């Protein structure tokens, strides 16, 4: 009997909730569309940490909703539309492939604010935001170039897209700077997330002499493979992956979306939200460098932190000339720094990387 009353209570509660009323003092509703499960331990996990930070910051003044595992297909447009219909005031779409669906939905809901991660299309109610992960890659490259004894650094790439290529170039340039003999071996996994394949890729690289493995895929499988092999260094990707510290994980690049998400939510609450294009790095705190462990020699750690500070303050740009493209042609002259346009569409390797970009 108790059960039945409980059930009925649930039903009435549900019915009242379904009403399309949006009172003035309603909490600000913030929605998130995720490409993977929140339990992926990497990309989506960090976005969800950002969502939780928004909840913590604003308490009852916000309500957050999310939808996970949304494919970058027709399903995305529906998921975003339903979120807008449900009364969301601000919606973060957290994967590149949501770009056109976000634009399409934004046209239909001019009063809802949209924030699309890693894309380049904007509108009056659509902002874009992304993180300069390559700044973190430069620091990784610096540490990796110092640590390697075999002079072979393995790199697991996901897809040959500008984001990944930029990271490889940044890491390579800075590894090369401290260790002219360094060589990059690159494996394209053609997946963002397939732990077994990532583990195999890491093993293949280690078997071929790599003693540092960098990854641009999202699972911690390469960390585990490196741990098992012993004597191999890795870096956390997207997430701190500190469970593998102090070895093999000697540092990490952390996507810290919380400050941005909190700021944007605040802007919506204050009515000051405007369409912007944000590409932040270490300075504003969107890219975090996870603790550098004691497995890294003290002097290298010091240099790395100095590099981090220089990048954060804007005093140093990781792509500062002279830099040649892979074919030997000049990309950046002495002292010249890369412009954002070229970086965003980067589809070439720099000189010295002995590999080809698929296609």
């Amino acid at each position, binding site marked *: 009997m108790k059960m039945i009353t409980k059930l009925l209570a649930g039903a009435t509660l549900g019915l009242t909730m379904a009403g399309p009323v949006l009172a003035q003092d309603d909490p600000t509703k913030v929605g998130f569309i995720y490409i993977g499960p929140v*339990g992926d*331990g990497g990309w989506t*996990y960090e976005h969800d940490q950002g969502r939780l930070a928004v909840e913590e910051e604003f308490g009852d003044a916000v309500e957050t909703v999310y939808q996970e595992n949304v494919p970058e297909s027709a399903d995305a447009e529906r998921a975003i539309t339903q979120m807008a219909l449900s009364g969301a005031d601000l919606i973060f779409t957290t994967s590149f492939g949501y770009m056109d669906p976000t634009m399409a939905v934004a046209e239909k809901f001019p009063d809802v604010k949209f924030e699309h991660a890693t894309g380049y299309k904007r509108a009056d109610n659509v902002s874009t935001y992304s993180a300069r992960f390559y700044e973190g890659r430069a620091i990784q490259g610096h540490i990796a170039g110092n640590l390697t004894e075999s002079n072979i650094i393995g790199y697991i790439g996901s897809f040959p897209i500008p984001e990944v290529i930029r990271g490889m170039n940044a890491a390579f340039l800075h590894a090369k700077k401290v260790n002219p003999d360094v060589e990059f071996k690159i494996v394209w996994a053609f997946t963002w*997330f397939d*732990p077994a394949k990532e*583990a195999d890729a890491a093993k293949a690289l280690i078997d071929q002499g790599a003693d540092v493995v960098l990854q641009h895929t999202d*699972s911690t499988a390469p960390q*585990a493979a490196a741990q098992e092999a012993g004597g191999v260094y890795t870096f956390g990707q997207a997430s701190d992956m500190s469970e593998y510290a102090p070895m093999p994980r000697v540092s990490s690049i952390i996507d810290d979306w919380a400050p941005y998400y909190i700021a944007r939510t605040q802007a919506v609450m204050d009515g000051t939200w405007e369409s912007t294009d944000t590409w932040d790095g270490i300075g504003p705190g969107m890219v975090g460098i996870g603790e550098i462990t004691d497995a890294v020699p003290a002097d290298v750690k010091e240099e790395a932190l100095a590099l981090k500070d220089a990048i954060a303050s804007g005093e140093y740009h990781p792509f500062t000339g002279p830099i040649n493209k892979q074919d030997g042609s000049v990309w950046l002259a002495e002292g010249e720094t890369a412009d954002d346009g070229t970086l965003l569409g980067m589809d070439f390797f720099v000189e010295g990387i002995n590999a080809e970009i698929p296609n």
Partner: protein
Amino acid sequence: MDSINPILLIASLMVASTPILLAALGEMVVEKAGVLNLGVEGMMITGAVVGFAIGVNSGSSALGFVSAALAGAALSMVFAIITQVLLANQVATGLGLTLFGLGLSSLIGKPYVGVKAPGFAKLDIPFLSDIPVLGPILFRHDPMVYLSLILVAVVWYLLARTRVGLILRAVGENHAAAHALGYKVVRVRFAAIATGGAMAGLGGAYVSLVRVPQWVEGMTAGAGWIALAIVVFASWRPWRILLGAYLFGGITVLQLNLQAAGSSIPVEYLSMSPYLVTILVLVIISVRGNHGAPGSLGRVFHASQ
């Protein structure tokens, strides 16, 4: 090219192949009994999460493997009841089992994301592991690699040499005739399905406890489908299952090694190579006219037929 070390390559292909070997071997037993269970992926992922959870909580990977086998078998009983008692279509039920297993596993696994695996010691067999070349290839693996090889032999022996195997094959070849001879068709099939479930569970736990090792949602990433393919590829023969699994695992590992070695073959072709080679070998096998699919495979059995 010369940076590829064949010894390490073989050693790592054995590890990469073990999950699909276990699952494929189990599925072969199921199919030999005349049942097609397409839910291998669902049972593997359930085994992966249960094995990991029990392994972490008890600190013992061995206990994790045992639990994974039990979980796989338990889940397979859902399939057995629906297809054997309620006589539903096996293809659809198997697909449903995969859907069900994927959902179930991620619910169970929520608290285990980002938790470290308990670790599983390798058997460093004294003397043998020091043999040059063969030592590192053959004698420095974890116990599950050896268990999977032993299971191949056991399954082969049971099927080919024992009365149990004879009954199983009779049921799979012609269930009406087997029934007429007085064999308990449904009971035999229940046992076969449970065996298949247990071995898929073991395969899944190998992924989460040894090969990766950690729990992440959807981590078997299609290994169950590959296992199904290998059963057909092997024409339902245990030793060919071993060959097929190692071949597939070998090409997967080799293509990553070729990439790392800077091979000039375009990456797109390399990454589709395991599937293309499987098709090619399959065609070669079928040209030689060797099929051997059990006669009653996938058909509904009802005693009054």
